[in-house]
Every structure is written in structure tokens, then in C-alpha cells.
């Protein structure tokens, strides 16, 4: 059985004036364990909505989501989430932020310390472990958020345009870092983006979504070899994937 299964998910939002709006229409989705899947689509097509339904933050009007065989209703530590605006706790240091989830779940102090230390090392922030988020750059903040989400060893990592607010260079370094982490941890990842290159570069599968109403219209399997290096974007296969997705998104 797949790690994440969404069946017949619809979400309707009531609106200030007029009819309720269908943000997501009867969507099915299955993600295998260890896969890196990107949700790609134009603004407003329901990417965040779908991700939040799986995260348990948005209640779907119809359908069910199962993660690791269990039907989910609420947010929980089996689904780590990373948001675009980091949402770190400003009163905690980098270490405090990463340890936060572990402490909530009453892990023994010794283990909290080692696990957090390893993760901070993994995202390359050992020098900043005792600093407050205030002094970190955007990229560093997002690395803390990733470490924090990974600390509880979630079954799936849900990321909503995590690099959307970063400049191009930081963004590409963060992509490499994420692939590196993923290669070591083999966590299942569902990654929302509206950037075609980002999706192809990162993913095993790219699910292309479309608006009116929001739905998944195509499922690309990306057969580019791993580990991927930055110049894979120049390859013929990459260009071909991009061409197909572009024409799909133009419609």
C-alpha cells in the first residue's frame, strides 16, 4: 500500500459574496514510500489546499486521506510540514526550534539533544545552534524549519513552496541541500511549487495541476539519473519534460 493515499478529495470554500468556490475537485493521489513528488501548477489551482488537507490543517468537503495506512483527521507528527514563511518560534534558539517537537512528545532529554544536534549538523547550522531566528537569513531559517519538521521522523514531509521567498542562488543551494537530505533520510516528500525547473530537478514524479476547478491533470515520471547535479537542467530530457509541462500549463 502506498505511503500517502488521497481519495476523492474535494474542498469547497465559502466566499464573501457569491457561490462557494470549489478549490479542489475530486482529486485522487497515491505516493509511494520514499518518493519525492512535486505538485506543480499555476497560482490558485489548489496546491496549498491539497497539501493542507493531507497535513490535516484544512478539512476536506469529501474524501479521505490515509498516511501509512491510517486515516487522518487532524494535523500530527507523522506529517512534517514546512511553510513558505518559515514560521519559526522567535523566542527559541535554532536548537530550541529543532528540539521543540521532540520535547512536545516527551522524548528523553539525552535523545532530544543528540537528534537535534545531528539534524542541525545535517542542515549545516552547527555554528548558529545557539542563535535566535532573528539573526538568520531566509535560507537559514528555512533550513531550521526543515530540521524541525524532520526531527520527529515523519512518514511524509509536506513542503509548501518552501523556497519561494528566496533569491535564485540561495534557492538552488537549498534544492541541492534538500536532495542531499532526502538521499540520506529517504523520507517521502510532497513538495508544492509553481516553478517548472524546480519540480523537474527535484522530483521522481511531477503532478501537474490546473485551475477551474483545481485538479491534477497529468502525472509525469521523471527518469533523470540521481544524484542530480545542477547541469542536468541543460540535458535534452530535462528540456523535453519542461516543454511538455509548459504546454500543459499554458492551456
Amino acid at each position: 500500500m502506498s505511503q500517502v493515499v488521497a481519495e476523492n478529495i474535494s474542498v469547497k470554500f465559502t466566499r464573501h459574496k457569491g457561490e462557494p468556490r470549489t478549490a479542489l475537485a475530486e482529486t485522487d493521489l497515491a505516493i509511494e514510500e520514499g518518493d519525492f513528488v512535486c505538485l506543480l501548477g499555476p497560482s490558485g489551482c489548489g496546491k496549498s489546499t491539497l497539501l493542507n488537507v493531507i497535513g490535516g490543517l484544512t478539512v476536506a468537503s469529501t474524501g479521505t486521506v490515509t498516511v501509512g495506512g491510517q486515516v487522518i483527521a487532524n494535523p500530527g507528527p507523522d506529517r512534517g510540514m514546512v511553510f513558505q514563511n518559515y514560521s519559526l518560534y522567535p523566542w527559541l534558539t535554532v536548537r530550541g526550534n529543532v528540539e521543540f517537537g521532540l520535547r512536545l512528545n516527551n522524548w528523553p532529554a539525552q535523545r532530544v539533544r543528540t537528534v537535534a544536534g545531528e539534524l542541525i549538523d545535517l542542515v549545516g547550522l552547527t555554528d548558529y545552534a545557539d542563535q535566535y531566528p532573528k539573526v538568520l537569513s531566509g535560507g537559514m531559517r528555512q533550513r531550521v524549519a526543515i530540521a524541525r519538521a524532520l526531527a520527529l521522523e515523519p512518514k511524509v514531509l509536506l513542503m509548501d513552496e518552501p523556497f519561494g521567498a528566496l533569491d535564485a542562488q540561495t534557492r538552488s543551494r537549498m534544492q541541492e541541500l534538500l536532495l542531499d537530505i532526502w538521499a540520506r533520510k529517504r523520507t517521502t516528500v510532497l513538495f508544492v511549487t509553481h516553478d517548472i525547473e524546480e519540480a523537474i530537478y527535484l522530483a521522481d514524479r511531477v503532478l501537474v495541476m490546473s485551475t477551474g476547478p483545481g485538479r491534477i491533470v497529468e502525472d509525469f515520471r521523471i527518469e533523470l539519473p540521481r544524484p542530480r547535479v545542477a547541469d542536468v537542467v541543460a540535458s535534452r530530457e530535462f528540456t523535453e519534460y519542461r516543454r511538455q509541462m509548459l504546454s500543459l500549463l499554458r492551456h
Partner: protein
Amino acid sequence: MSGLVPHLSQSPAKAPARGALDGADKQSPSWARRLGDCFRPRAELTTASRWTLSLLGVGLFFGAWLIATEGGLIQPFFLPSPIAVLSRLVAMITQEGFLIDIWASTFRVMSGFFLAAALAIPVGVLVGNFAAFRALIEPLLSTARYLPASAFVPLMIIWLGINEEQKISVIFIGTFFPLALLIADISASVSKDMLNSAYTLGANSRQLFFRVLIPACIPAIVDALRVTIGIAWTYVIVAELVGADRGMGIAILQAQRFLLTDQVIAGIVCVGILGVLTDFAFRFAHRKLFPYMY
């Protein structure tokens, strides 16, 4: 915690655009540039310009006061000169035991204020975070806010008699309602994303409340205390209106009765100074308590 409201993530908190507004070049900007900065919204000033402007403001005020009074434009009976007020203040402190009045008022203001805070913080936090609690008491709270504290003086005299408790109760009533509502707003405005991320890390309602909501709003609450203690000082006269024998308020009221304008102004200045001092104390404490914000 089930059935959370759909969460809004479409408007990420973008970093504010950097540029000219941020005062990118800090080292000695030209005069034209400095002047320009004075009229550009949100432009940062250099520390030197800020102090110069502050001193200029205070200097202009006292200069105008000095010229108007010493120059004979205004009768000393209406407005004595700052020098006369200062010497009167020194005389009050050294010869008339004004320090006792200052202490009596300070004690009242602090007692009333801290009692109000002790109650307003829990009430505000509950109203801001629990819809049921909000529905239950917000209508009463927001109505009570419009009742003038001075209107309660007669009532408090009937209930408590003419004594210290009655005076403290005036300060309490004057600060409790605005403070509770302020804290309710602060608690309610903790960002949804912060709550959501705590839920996804496995927080239950109790943990969410004590480990996220409370720490997230405490800095703003301390700031609200700073603002409302200012309000508390403004009630000192009302509090001492009836039956006080010592206090800055009563000193001012008595001076008015005997037409001692310099003493009235000295008293007012003194309340002002104490207000500024408490403000500084709160700002200082804020920096010490919440180093992660600075």
C-alpha cells in the same frame, strides 16, 4: 482541535523591500539627504539626527516658555517661568516633604495598576484565545471600557469608604478594562501559521496554549503594560480627589485652591517625570526579558 479553519498561506510574509528607505549608507549622509529623510515615510534617521531633533523639540518648548514668561508676555500668576517652577519644586521637596506625596501617589498608582494587570492578563488571554470565553464576557468588557473611572468614585466611596482601598480602586477601574481588551487583541493576533506548525509537530491544545500562544504574546503584553501604566498615572488626580492627605494629586488640588500656579505646574511636571521613568523602566525590562527581539 479537529475541524481547524482552512489556513491561509497565500500571503507569505515577504521580507520588506530593501533600498533607499532602509538607510543603506549609514556613514555621514549629505545634508540634503538628511533633510530628505525627515520627510520620507518610514525613513530611518541616524542616531545623531534623532537626538538632535529630540533636543530641538524639548529646547523649543522650554525656550518659548522662558521667553513668554521672563519676557513679561504672560503674567506669572497665569504661567510662572520654568525657573520659578523648578525652584518651587526644589523647595517642595527639601522643605515641605513632597517626597512623601510622591511616594503616596506612586504606591497608589502601582498597587492599582498591578492589581489590574494581575486580573487583566488572565482575562485578556482567555478572551483572546477561547471563543467561548470571548462570547461570554466580551460584551461586558467592551461596554465597561466606555465608563469613565471618575464616575465610579462616588460608588467606591459608598462601597469602600474614604480610604486607601477606594483610591486604589479608581486606578484599578481606570486601567483594568483597556488593559484586558488590549491583551485580548494581542492574544488573538498570534499568527495562524505558528499555531499550525505547532499542531503538525504534535502539540495538543494544552501544549499549544502554554508553549506557543503564551510565549508568542508575552512581549506584546509587556508592551501593553507599559502603555497602560501611563494611563494609570493620568488617574492619580481623580484618585486623590476625595479625602487624601498626602499625594501629588492632592498637592496639585490644594495649590489650585490657593492659586499657587507654580506649585500646580511643579506637581504636573512631577507626575510627568514619574510617568517617563516608569516608561523607561518597562522599555528596559522589555529588552532584558526578550533579548531575541533586539
